[in-house]
Each structure stands twice: as structure tokens, then as C-alpha cells.
């Protein structure tokens, strides 16, 4: 239907622009919907209503302008170049994740054979940015926050990976596009009306993935690196204005990315039953967006409700609880894969 013949250069340009648009847009959407509205309503308040637009969504634009106007403060003793580079590193890792997430049968920047592996690998790059920020800030709170972040992200890489391994075994592929197709074309005991979203078989993996990604995103109950009541704002305590906005975009952009990843791996990504071909290309992004918002709602619901764990409790949870469960899940998946 849309057989467009355009050169590879144009394609690349379009893809780059789309990716560059998706992250800030996604971050803003999550920031508005969850941080300003859902959280407010959960806390028996309304959030910003007056700035204009539906439920005051212009507030986001106002916030953006405010961040741009702010003075760019850099501590005297800061390591200037590292300090400036850190937010970029954090945001960069977020951008890279989106390169492999499919939004339709053909709507994918690059369908890597090892897409899952790649996504998880680049998403953990952000810890380098966090460490850089904490170290370069020449602030003790920032340093503590950065070291906490490093320890935490290392500990939670493993459960995250183990949670995904079950999906990979079941799909028999590490390409995200293949995984989506497997879910779309799969069947449950010969009944293939809704395909086979892996959440039905990999519900343990889904739970693990949510918990671990919550830790990767440094969201409550695992928000020790930024712990407001302890470390004030952790590694970003010295950042102002535009640089802080970068961290903000990084934080919510990563949340957007992980939600999309979870939706792709466990909820069938862009696929909906009965839609194929070009229509899937048209509806795909919307479907993926709806699914990832569901996942994001779960994540943020927990974030707004739970208290924060302590650093040692967090480690104990990862090593004593999540990793064994992840291993058992893989074992079970393997057994069932062989048996059926």
C-alpha cells in the first residue's frame, strides 16, 4: 500500500529524527500524566490545573522554559568537563535503547539479531553517566548517591537479564521483532485468537522484570541514589537548569524505554489480534503506546506508594530472592520448552 522508495540516507535521517523526538516526547508524556496528574490524584490533590490546556498540561511547557532560563551553576571544585558530559551520557543511553524497539512490522530502526541483549546492555550505560555526575560534582551527597547507584545497578542487571532469558528461550530468538511475531502468531493450546502474549507463561519473568527495572530506573522503593530525604537529590544535587532537565528527560525517558521493552517482551508489543500487514504498521505505534502506558502505570503506582528500602536490604533482595527466582524461572521454562 505504501511502497515508498526512498534512499537509505533519507531513511536514516527520518529514523534519527523519530528517535530524537520519541525520548523527550515520551519523557514529557510520562512526566505529565504520572508525575503531575496520577500522583496528584493518588495524593488527594489536583496538581497544576491553572496553566491552561486540558487539566493544565501547559505546565510542562512552562517547566521546560523555566529550566532553560535557569542559571547554569557549576560548583567551583567540580571536574568541569566530566560534570558537563554526565547528563549527556545518561540521555544517550536512553536514546540507544529505542533503536531496537519495534513499533510495527516494518517500523523499527534496526532489527538486531541480538536486540534484547543490546537493549539491556545500552540501558545500563546510564550508570556511567550517574557515576560521572556524582564524582564530578565535588559533593559528598552526590558521591554517596552515585556509589549507591553503581552498586544498585550492578546488582539489578542480573535479575533483569534472568527475567528476560525466559522470554528468549520461549521465543527462540533474541530479536525483538521475532519475539513480537512469536507472540502474535503463537497459540494457547491450539487457540490462537489473541496470540500468545508471553505474560501468560512468563508471569514470573514479568514480575521480576518490573521489580528489576524499578531498581534500574532508581524509582521508589529503590530510589536510594536520589533519596530525597537522605541525600537530598543524590547524584544530581548540584545540577541546575538545562543540565538538570537532561537528567529529568533521562529519568523519564528511561522509564518510557523500559515500559516499551516490557510491553514488547511480555505484552506482545505492537501486535493486536486480527491486525496484520500495513494496518499493523499504522496502528502499531498506538498499540505499543497503550501497552507501555499500562506498564508505566504499574511502575509509577508503586513509586508513589511505597517507602524506600535500605541499601543493604536492596542488595539482599536482589541476591537472595530475585536471582534464585529468576534461575528457577529459566529452569521451568526450559523444562516446558522441551516437554511441549
Amino acid at each position, binding site marked *: 500500500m505504501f511502497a515508498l522508495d526512498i534512499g537509505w540516507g533519507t531513511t536514516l535521517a527520518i529514523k534519527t529524527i523519530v528517535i530524537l523526538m520519541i525520548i523527550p516526547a515520551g519523557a514529557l508524556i510520562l512526566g505529565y500524566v504520572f508525575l503531575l496528574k496520577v500522583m496528584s490524584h493518588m*495524593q488527594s490533590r489536583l496538581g497544576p490545573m491553572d496553566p491552561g490546556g486540558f487539566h493544565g498540561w501547559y505546565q510542562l511547557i512552562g517547566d521546560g522554559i523555566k529550566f532553560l532560563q535557569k542559571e547554569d551553576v557549576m560548583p567551583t*571544585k567540580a571536574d568541569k568537563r566530566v560534570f558537563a558530559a554526565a547528563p549527556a551520557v545518561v540521555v544517550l543511553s536512553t536514546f540507544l535503547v529505542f533503536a531496537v524497539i519495534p513499533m510495527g512490522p516494518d517500523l523499527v530502526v534496526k532489527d538486531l539479531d541480538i536486540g534484547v541483549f543490546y537493549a539491556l546492555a545500552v540501558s545500563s550505560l546510564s550508570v556511567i553517566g550517574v557515576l560521572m555526575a556524582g564524582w564530578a560534582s*565535588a559533593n*559528598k551527597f*552526590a558521591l554517596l548517591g552515585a556509589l549507591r547507584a553503581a552498586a544498585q545497578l550492578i546488582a539489578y542487571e542480573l535479575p533483569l537479564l534472568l527475567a528476560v532469558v525466559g522470554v528468549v528461550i520461549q521465543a527462540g530468538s533474541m530479536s525483538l521483532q521475532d519475539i513480537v511475531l512469536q507472540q502474535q502468531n503463537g497459540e494457547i493450546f491450539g487457540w490462537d485468537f489473541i496470540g500468545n502474549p508471553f505474560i501468560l507463561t512468563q508471569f514470573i519473568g514479568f514480575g521480576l522484570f518490573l521489580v528489576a527495572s524499578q531498581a534500574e530506573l532508581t524509582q521508589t522503593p529503590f530510589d536510594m541514589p536520589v533519596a530525597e530525604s537522605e541525600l537530598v537529590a543524590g547524584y544530581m544535587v548540584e545540577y541546575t537548569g538545562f543540565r538538570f532537565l537532561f537528567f529529568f528527560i533521562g529519568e523519564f525517558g528511561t522509564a518510557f524505554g523500559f515500559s516499551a521493552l516490557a510491553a514488547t517482551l511480555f505484552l506482545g508489543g505492537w501486535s493486536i489480534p486480527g491486525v496484520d500487514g500495513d494496518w499493523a504498521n499504522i496502528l502499531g505505534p498506538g498499540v505499543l503506546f497503550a501497552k507501555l502506558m499500562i506498564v508505566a502505570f504499574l511502575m509509577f503506582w508503586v513509586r508513589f506508594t511505597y517507602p*524506600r528500602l*535500605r541499601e543493604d536490604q536492596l542488595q539482599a533482595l536482589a541476591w537472595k530472592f530475585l536471582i534464585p527466582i529468576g534461575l528457577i524461572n529459566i529452569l521451568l521454562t526450559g523444562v516446558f520448552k522441551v516437554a511441549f
Partner: protein
Amino acid sequence: MTAPTHASARSEGPGWVPQPGVSEPSVGMNVELDTGDMVLNLGPQHPATHGTLRLVIRLDGERVLTADPVIGYMHRGYEKLTEFRTYPQVTTLINRIDWLSSFANEVPFMDAAERLMGIEAPPRAQWIRTTLTELSRIATFLLFLGEMGLQVGALTPAFYGFRDREHVLNLIEAATGGRFHPNFNRIGGLKDDLPWGWIAETRATMKIVLDACDQFEDLVLGNEIFGARTRGIGIIPSDVGTAYGVSGSNLRASGVDWDLRRDARPYLAYPDLDFKVWTHPDGDSYSRYWVRLQETREAARMVLQCLEGMPAGPIMAKVPRIIKVPEGEVWVETENPLGQMAYYVVSKGATGPFRVKIRSASFSNVSILPWLLQGVFVPDVITILASLYFILGDIDR
């Protein structure tokens, strides 16, 4: 070899400081890295100190070696100022000691002046005082119940705490005209009687308060992570607590069955009320939260009892126009939301006090911190600070 020094990690100068009996480390393979202690200034501007308390903490990693509270950033010298005020004027000052429960601060001072003068407020005034004292206790504790959640990382309870406290503050405002600093007590009684409809309104609000307590029990106390963060953290043994002068709910959470409303010289209408003194044997942060939750409920029940038993009659005793307090001295203590609030008033027969020793609860409650914070982790410092529940004005006076 010494560890690489860094501006943020090593504020205490160079990495190696010559010490007697310790030889300078030589460069070699089997020398442990010198991980020096880090001095962390928690405060004076820090979200966990809700005010201007400063804690100088020496850290080894995340473990606290020593903690030294530095107070006085808000010291206003009330003990000196009271010597330059007349008795009615002092009320304005003491309103601002523990600013969350200002009304409760006024009561013991009025009691002291009345005892020195040998007058007694009429029963209705006493009962209204009791009601408002318990209302300020509820307001203070509701804030704590939410605030504690915030300090251990949960954002939402704090908003619920503020939301429900608002109802109680509205009541206090309706009766006294002031939300925070009522300045409602007069020597020998009260400024005004209760407004029309206030009692029915208060009854309805107590229902809200009791519901809010249930909600906090579910949302905060029932949360596993909250339990993990607070159970066994900051244990105050009862003998240590009393030696440091820790009082109020903090001491009752350590199993000491001591409530001045019941055990001090009878004051206000408390002898006529039926209430239970809650204690908890553990003495940790969790039990402090638990005790305050129960006391909020108990206070709501006491308010309801007060409304039931409120006698009719005048609200002011016969008091001379210019108040001169006869020579003498008196010690008056009351159970305030934060603990034992007491005044030792020395009068020399003048219109103003000669010396007022203000014994505020938070001062002693916080003085236990150097002992309590040894060996805990940084997040536990926040838990302990939050669970002790101090008001900076109450420390610094």
C-alpha cells in the same frame, strides 16, 4: 599507599595524617588502601531535619562512626526574653516554642501563673483547654504519621497527613482565631467561649481523624518495607531513655508506663477522662510510630469525651486587671505531644516573671542522638530522626 584524594570525598585535608604510633604507609602490594572517614554535614539545610538542625556525621562508607548534633541556629533566647515581659505577654513567646502544638505550650505556663496567684480557671475553661490541647496533639501527630512515611521514602502519606491535619487546624482556628499560634489562654481562663456549632463540627472531624488513623495503619504501618526500615532501628532501652530525659511517646515506646496526663499533679480535666496509656516494649522506630498512632486515636476519643462532659459556666475566673504574681516559685509539667513540657517559674511579686526555666521535650529527646546514631547506616539516621519527632523551635527555644 594513600588513596587518591578528592575534593568531595576528603574534606579533612590530605589523605595521610601523621599519627602517633602509626608508621607512614609505604608503597607496596599488601598495604590496605586507606579509606579515610568522611565527614558529612547533614544540615543545617536538609530535608530530613525539618528545620535547622545540623548533624556532623563521621562516616565509614555508609556507616556512622560518630554523630554530633549542632543546634542553636534557631535559638531565640526565650528564657532571657521572658524576664522582660509581663505574664500575659509571655504567652506570645511560648506559643512559638513547639509551633505545631502551640496551644499545648500555653497551658503549663498559664497553670504556673494561676498556681502562683492562687486562682483557678473555671471548669468550663479547663475542659475547653483540655479539648484544644488534645486537638493540637492530634494535629501534631497526624503530621508525624505522614511525615514519617515521607522520611522513609513514601511520598503519599505525607499528603494524607497534611490533608487530615487541615480539618483539625480548621477547628482550632474556628475556636481561637489562629491556626498555628492561637494565643487563646488568659491567666484565669480563656479569651472566648466556643463558637456556635463547634461541638458538632468537632464530632464529625473526630470521625475523619479516626478514619485517617485506620488509613495510616494500612498504608504505612502495614507496609512490609516500612517494617523492614523501622523495626530494630534506633532502639532506646528504657534506662538509657530516662537518663537522657527522653519523654513522651518516645519513652512510652520503650516500655516506660509514664504519662504526665495521668501521673503528674492533676491538671486540666484529665482526672475526669477515661483514657489508656499506650506503651510498646520494643523501643525501636517502629514502636514509636505505633505508639503515636494509638495516641492519636486515644486523643480523638478523649476529645469526644470532652465534648460529652463539657460543663456549662463562665470561662474566666475573677482576675485583677493588672496581673501581679505573688512571690514564689512553682514547677508545672504537662504531657505535650512531643513529651514533657515544663516551666519552672520564679516570681518576685512583679508583673513579670523573674526567671522562667523552659524545659522543652525535644531538647532532651534529641540529646540522645550521639548515643543512638553510633553504628547505624545513613538511611537509618533519617529514620531515627523522623521517629524521634522533634520540632526545632522546641530544641532551640
